[in-house]
């Protein structure tokens, strides 16, 4: 008897849960060098192979191969390694300070450092960045002093956010990095608007924005894609597919039957899927997309295939929803290790230099932490003036807020 066909509710399944063996066979991978590099004037539809394939430059022998090799000087690669390593050392240290109760919350970008660092390096300082909360590498590249980042994390007297934001929600007007929102995906269509303004003003700056693959399910994603396509905005639209959105596997954001990059051509926007742990590949894809944008070619949707090696945040325990050691079997390796091995293979780096650099960065982070905590921590030392709470709600403080400020003063005695 043939079974009767009927509709059924499909529920995406992650390949492995706690207690299972890790399994990344669902990932469609391609060897380094497999993807051709088209002219930037390519039509959106013609990018479908790029959007479903995978741009990789670093091969298993640590060589740079194929048309996407950006042919960077060793000094550039060494700078990239430094920024990624600094991001990692910073993250590890800040995680520890949270565990010690010195800051209230933290989010690491462990395993995803190349996504921010390589892209920021491939863009120009005048390009505007609209990050999520997992892009601290942007700050490392653009050179914000670590003490200033730490003071934000500490909500102390030198906090750039004046105590108003959760840790990690930085901003940097001077460095052209937009304020991070706690609400997912809101920055994605905003970056499109910024890029539209650049085009209206006739400037050749581009905007770039990052969201997680989980966040790409929000309606803001759709709005951003439509506006980007309609106005051919000079913008790089990055989806960081780190496989997990807290406990929710990427299949729940639409990654099971298609790639995220493949949404691009559907909107009329070129899509590229890139190995997010390959510094060279991310760099090259960024250069290509930025070049396209500056030449009037419009937006590019870039999916970075990577893995969130850390917990979602300090409030999260990933061993409850995924195999503990899943990262060890991640087939695209570690971005820091891969760039390091590439430099060593080129004769431009050594284990000794790497160890020395690590030590140097740890010392820098340690010294910065010491300096930052002098300005107070969440619970000790000098504190921000609570009057600040009432400022910046509006440009000028309305009467009812001034009254409340006075009331708080009286309350505090």
């Amino acid at each position: 008897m043939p079974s009767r066909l009927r509709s059924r509710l499909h529920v995406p399944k992650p390949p492995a849960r706690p207690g299972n063996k890790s399994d990344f066979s669902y990932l469609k991978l391609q060897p380094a060098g497999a993807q051709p590099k088209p002219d930037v004037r390519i039509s959106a539809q013609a990018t479908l192979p790029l959007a479903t394939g995978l741009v990789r430059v670093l091969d298993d022998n640590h060589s740079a191969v194929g048309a996407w090799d950006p042919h960077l000087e060793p000094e550039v690669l060494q700078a990239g390694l430094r920024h990624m390593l600094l991001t990692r050392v910073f993250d590890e240290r800040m995680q520890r300070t949270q565990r010690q109760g010195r800051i209230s919350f933290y989010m690491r970008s462990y395993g995803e450092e190349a996504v921010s660092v390589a892209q920021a390096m491939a863009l120009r300082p005048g390009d505007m960045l609209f990050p999520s909360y997992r892009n601290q590498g942007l700050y490392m590249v653009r050179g914000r002093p670590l003490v200033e980042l730490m003071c934000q994390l500490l909500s102390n007297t030198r906090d750039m956010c004046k105590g108003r934001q959760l840790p990690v929600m930085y901003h940097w007007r001077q460095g052209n990095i937009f304020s991070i929102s706690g609400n997912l995906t809101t920055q994605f269509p905003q970056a499109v608007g910024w890029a539209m303004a650049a085009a209206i003003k006739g400037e050749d700056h581009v905007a770039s924005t990052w969201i997680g693959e989980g966040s790409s399910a929000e309606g803001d994603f759709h709005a951003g894609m439509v506006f980007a396509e309609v106005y051919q905005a000079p913008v790089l639209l990055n989806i960081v597919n780190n496989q997990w959105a807290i406990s929710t596997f990427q299949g729940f954001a639409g990654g099971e039957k298609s790639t995220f990059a493949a949404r691009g051509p559907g909107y009329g926007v070129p899509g590229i899927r890139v190995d997010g742990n390959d510094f060279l590949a991310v760099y090259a894809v960024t250069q290509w997309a930025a070049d396209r944008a500056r030449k009037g070619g419009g937006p590019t949707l870039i999916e970075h295939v990577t893995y969130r090696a850390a917990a979602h945040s300090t409030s999260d325990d990933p061993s409850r929803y995924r195999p503990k050691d899943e990262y060890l079997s991640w087939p695209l390796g570690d971005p820091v290790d891969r760039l390091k091995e590439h430099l060593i293979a080129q004769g431009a780096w050594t284990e000794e230099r790497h160890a020395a650099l690590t030590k140097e960065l740890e010392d820098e982070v340690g010294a910065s932490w010491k300096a930052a905590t002098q300005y107070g921590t969440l619970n000790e030392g000098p504190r921000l003036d609570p009057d600040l709470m009432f400022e910046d709600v509006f440009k000028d403080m309305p009467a009812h807020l001034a009254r409340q400020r006075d009331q708080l003063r009286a309350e505090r005695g």
Partner: protein
Amino acid sequence: MAKMNMIQALNSAMDVMLDRDPGVVVLGEDVGYFGGVFRTTDGLQRKYGEHRVLDTPISELGIVASAIGMAVNGLRPVAEIQFADYIYPGYDQIVSELARLRYRSAGEFYAPVTIRTPCGGGIRGGQTHSQSPEAIFAHICGIKVVMPSNPYDAKGLLISAIEDDDPVIFLEPKRLYNGPFDGDPDKPAVPWSAHARGEVPEGHYTVPISKAEIVRAGRDATIIAYGTMVHVAEAAANALGLDAEIIDVRTIVPLDAETLCESVKRTGRCLIVHEATRFGGFGAEIAATVQEECFWQLEAPIGRVGGWDTPYPHAFEWEYFPGQKRVASALEALMSAS
């Protein structure tokens, strides 16, 4: 009776309803396999399967809209929005659709959707994990709004909400999840097991929607509060040694004006306390109602205490939070006026 904290009580309400009614489904971000970031839906997917307890994509718009569609097709969705601060992408679906479907189709279509969402501050969550948005839902016509202050009410009200044929926004003060909180962060935490309202029946029962509760009878003044502020108000009144009547509003829409006004008519003095920002807050609606009904019995201007009219700042959590001090000085002003 069992001892339950608020999370367990809410979990038990969903468990009871999933068991009783095959049309009940639970959906939201991280609610299935993981059991929710606050563990409120823990174990429910294991018990009822992936077609009854659904993990969703991260889209509050999608969660609310698909819940409406499911409800129209005969189910009773209980949707979780991970934090009330993240409900806004679904706001249009709530305001323009969920709230008005019955009205615009002259009753032919309706959507019995319950939207649960953690609200309120006191957990160092900063401006995006601390909001109390009840007033912006109260202002919509066609949607009920509920906020419990203890595990017993939480379970009974959630069951009522799920059984209700109208849509309900169910706001859960997250600072109360694990224990009552009187507004003093320096005091050791008290568990619900030490509180009378931590006694919760295992099975089915309801607490009626649209009924306020007199938590404590008193003669000198009426304090009207809900959520976390019920506990703060009680502590503040105790500290002043004031014989205040304390009313837990419990249901914001439809408001039990009768219970509130009957009390104020007796005491002649009224203080309204909520955690949400004061300007245009729900306290204004209560004050207007009390004024209309009790004007001739009032012995003092109606007082209002709320959060300051700013976003909820991370570093100034306790300067922002309307704690015992702010409530007490409002009470003193209320009592000294004549």
